[in-house]
């Protein structure tokens, strides 16, 4: 009797103490951010199909809300702490060792912010969608949930769930609202990605059993498995590590996409609607490189070292090949798509340099690429909405009619080719610095990619913007409206901010990257010291 009354007082009488409230928010914030869009998608179901305006506005409000929630993360992030923060662990399938486990560190922090930032912009870019609007926004919101979930989940099973679930909305976005060959592109996108990821699933299960047999705890928890590996409580045999690494790597390499797994990308990009391309380039591709940093390196460091020369070679080939193919594209969107292959090659190169600069540069470049290429797709989408063509030779002299557009386009182009003072420079510089320390020839070859990117980007810019108006249809083009400016200006601000105050973004990464490097470089020493 007395016990129960005491219980009541402590539970309800005094209310929740203030610091508990803070803990409650900080442990649930990732869940809130992740599922805000999903809840929004559910609510859109109840909208009347004809209320186009309110559905659009509602979707925008939801994504902005998710963005505002996500600002809590950098505000409360402890920069010096290399561990996962904002942790929440709730047993999901306890008998299987599956936990609903969320948390972020310096590596995933900004990727989540990138996602929540690009999503409202992508919604803004969807104003020209008329057909089956309701479904469109439902899929957009579900996609956002999937993307955030991938970056925030710490349980391998949960990670895989988000990783796969996210394919379905993207499949619909490309397949229903895409261009001419949309069905082919959507199918190719799903099947390519699936092939890689199902093998990763087998590898995840194998890792689960190997870890369980070694330590006695059967769990899918990534931090636990990683800690056991780092603490040598759980040692993978060389050949096992080799195969597991390959299974994970294939999934990530296809997603990145690393040359020669890139062929789905131009198709998907060209056929996807503008918003789809923005999220595809801005966020989806980052999942591949994120996976390499988060899982491949710390889980399989020895195999990473073993394969690094080959992977770096593929990355360099991708840098140059992507740039050369981009140069000859007659279609602006395809050009940007191939430029992604080139830029993502840089990121992979930075990751497999196994240096702090290289890795930080790679993470920085992930953000840069999301911002610059996202902006480029928005730029292309704006002109496509007006002219319903993306062929470069249809344009010319747009500066006369659309001066603001030309100016914005210029900044984005310069950011993409890595002009000092803008964001792209910092990332590329760090990557090249890191790679140079590891292998000079690779760095030299990769540097040519920087030059080539200037060639194809500036050449496209010149053909589209400068010169006289050659096509009569371009004479009546209107300059950017308020909505279009609103979706580009945040990105332009970030380009400058990240170009000048790079420390604001690099400092939170430091501790986590250092921890990762300790893990990877230690193994390098062991590896080098072992007799062959």
């Amino acid at each position, binding site marked *: 009797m007395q016990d129960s009354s005491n219980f009541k007082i402590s539970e309800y009488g005094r209310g929740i103490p203030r610091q508990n409230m803070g803990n409650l928010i900080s442990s649930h914030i990732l869940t809130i951010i992740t599922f805000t869009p999903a809840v929004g998608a559910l609510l859109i179901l109840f909208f009347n199909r004809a209320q186009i305006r309110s559905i659009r506005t509602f979707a925008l409000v939801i994504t902005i809300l998710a963005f505002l929630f996500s600002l809590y993360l950098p505000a409360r992030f402890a920069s010096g702490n290399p561990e996962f923060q904002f942790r929440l662990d709730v047993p999901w399938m306890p008998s*299987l060792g599956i936990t609903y486990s969320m948390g972020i560190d310096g590596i995933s922090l900004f990727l989540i912010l990138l996602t929540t930032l690009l999503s409202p912009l992508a919604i803004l870019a969807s104003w020209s969608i008329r057909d089956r609007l309701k479904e469109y926004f439902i899929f957009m919101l579900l996609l956002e949930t999937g993307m955030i979930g991938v970056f925030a989940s710490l349980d391998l099973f949960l990670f895989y769930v988000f990783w*796969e*679930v996210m394919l379905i909305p993207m499949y619909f976005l490309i*397949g229903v609202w895409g261009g001419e060959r949309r069905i082919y592109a959507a199918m190719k996108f*799903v099947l390519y990605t*699936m*092939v890689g990821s199902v093998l990763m699933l087998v590898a995840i*299960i194998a890792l689960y059993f190997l870890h369980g047999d070694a330590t006695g705890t059967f769990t899918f928890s990534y931090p636990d498995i990683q800690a056991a590996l780092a603490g040598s409580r759980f040692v993978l045999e060389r050949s096992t590590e080799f195969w597991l690494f390959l299974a994970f790597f294939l999934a990530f390499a296809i997603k990145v996409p690393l040359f020669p797994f890139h062929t789905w990308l131009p198709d998907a990009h060209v056929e996807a609607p503008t918003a789809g391309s923005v999220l595809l380039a801005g966020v989806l591709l980052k999942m591949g490189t994120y996976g390499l940093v988060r899982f491949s390196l710390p889980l399989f460091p020895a195999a990473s070292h073993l394969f690094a020369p080959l992977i770096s070679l593929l990355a360099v080939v991708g840098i140059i090949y992507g740039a050369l193919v981009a140069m000859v594209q007659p279609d602006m969107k395809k050009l940007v798509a191939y430029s992604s292959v080139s830029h993502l090659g840089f990121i992979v190169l930075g990751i497999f340099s196994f240096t702090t600069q290289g890795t930080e540069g790679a993470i920085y470049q992930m953000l840069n690429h999301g911002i610059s290429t996202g902006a480029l797709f928005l730029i292309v989408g704006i002109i496509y909405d007006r002219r319903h063509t993306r062929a470069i030779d249809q344009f010319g002299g747009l500066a006369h009619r659309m001066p603001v557009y030309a100016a914005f386009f210029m900044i984005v182009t310069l950011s993409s080719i890595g002009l000092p003072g803008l964001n792209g420079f910092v990332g590329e510089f760090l990557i090249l610095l890191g790679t140079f320390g590891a292998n000079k020839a690779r760095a030299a070859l990769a540097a040519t990619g920087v030059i080539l990117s200037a060639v194809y980007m500036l050449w496209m810019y010149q053909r589209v913007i400068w010169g006289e108006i050659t096509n009569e249809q371009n004479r009546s083009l209107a300059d950017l409206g308020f909505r279009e400016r609103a979706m580009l200006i945040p990105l332009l601000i970030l380009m400058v901010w990240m170009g000048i105050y790079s420390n604001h973004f690099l400092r939170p990464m430091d501790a986590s990257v250092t921890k990762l490097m300790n893990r990877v470089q230690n193994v390098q020493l062991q590896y080098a010291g072992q007799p062959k």
Partner: protein
Amino acid sequence: MNLASINIFAILPAVVLSVFGIAVMVAEPFVTDRKKSTLGWLAFSGTLAGMLALIPMADNGGQWYSNLWIVDDYNIFFNFIFLLIAAVTILTSLDFLRRENMNHAEFYALLLFATAGMLMMSGSNELVMIFLGLEILSIATYVMAGFRRTDLKSNESALKYFLLGSFSSAFFLYGIALIFGATGSTNLLAIAQSLRSPDIPMNLVYLSAALMLIALCFKVAVAPFHIWTPDVYEGAPTPVTGFMSVGPKAAGFAVLFRVFLTAFGMIEDRWVSAFWLVAALTMVLGNVIAVVQPNIKRMLAYSSIAHAGYVAVALTSASNRGGSAALFYLLAYSLMNLGAFAVVTIMSRSEDKMVNLTDYAGLGAKRPGLAAVLSLFLLSLAGVPGTSGFAGKFFIFRAAVESHLVWLAIIGVVTTVVSFYYYLYVIVQMYMREPNEEFSDVRVAGSLKVALVISAFGTLYLGILPTRVLDWTTTAALNALK
């Protein structure tokens, strides 16, 4: 047998179904044509009563009727699946039979008898009893497959099913005869006991196991014994196809597990490699051939072959986890496949004519609700996370990796990718093609709505919160692994 050993509660669900089945048949002449559906609802309440009867049955665990009959979690779990399948099939058939002017109440009676046969199959501890259950199930299903009496395809379907089914029954019977000759018993536990003694003619045992394996592989339609499936599935009335693709399959697997894990557990090393081959072949053939099917019923027929392959993977692992995963998968598969067939029933319309994939073009634009539920079932069949299909496949591959069947797991996941192609192709038709028609004659009757809600709820529940059911299947699988 004296009266004291009769325990009606141990066999209550089967008794309930038989009573309701007989009641439907007796009442049929007295009900006017327009009111035949009432008998359908009577049969439906029979399945619900059967589920209620599971409660007293669960309290009477153990072996009954001179060890002929066994009541354990394994049996109860399968009984639950069978009764669920029967209930959903009745809901799907009610409107269909009315629509097709073949509203003969015998259909419901046959369905109840077939279900009673399935209950016997999962509960028997005795090969002869299993055979009786198998025949009760099969004969009722032969008639149901040919229920559209004036249609050539339906007749072809029934005849093919009958001929090949009889063949496989004969194989099974021969297997029983041989094992009786070798061990002097047809009781599964007794067989398992006598296999431990050294003076058993092992060659006879192997031969008997092989014959039973072949017979049951026919029943569950796994490669290379699957050839009959597409024709039979295509010709049968659509709700019957739905029933055949899950009911006899689940019952066949119930027997496969019981016979091979309980009776032939001792000679596991002999049959595991055969299962390995069957599983691999089934997953590859089923998925690859399904890709080129233009008819949705044939496509789902090949897909059902492929899914049997996944269950066979779990069987190959021959572990408790494998058994548990297989039971889970059978429940998940039953629900999602019945759901898919319920939509196909709705869409096939008059005389089951509209069953080509292209008939689904533009459904997403015209009938978003229907297209959305079918997409859910198809995505679950493909194995997208968040659905029961993914949870089931995950458990199966987990069991396979645990039993060091990594290659089988790899074949499994890669063929899953192939399956994405043909499941998504239906979604392509529904959402990404222009509609050719208004779908104004597509009617969703109330009973079908209930069927769809049950299947969709089950598919999502098992996909998101599978633990509770998985715990149940784990204890159930332990029973078979004695």
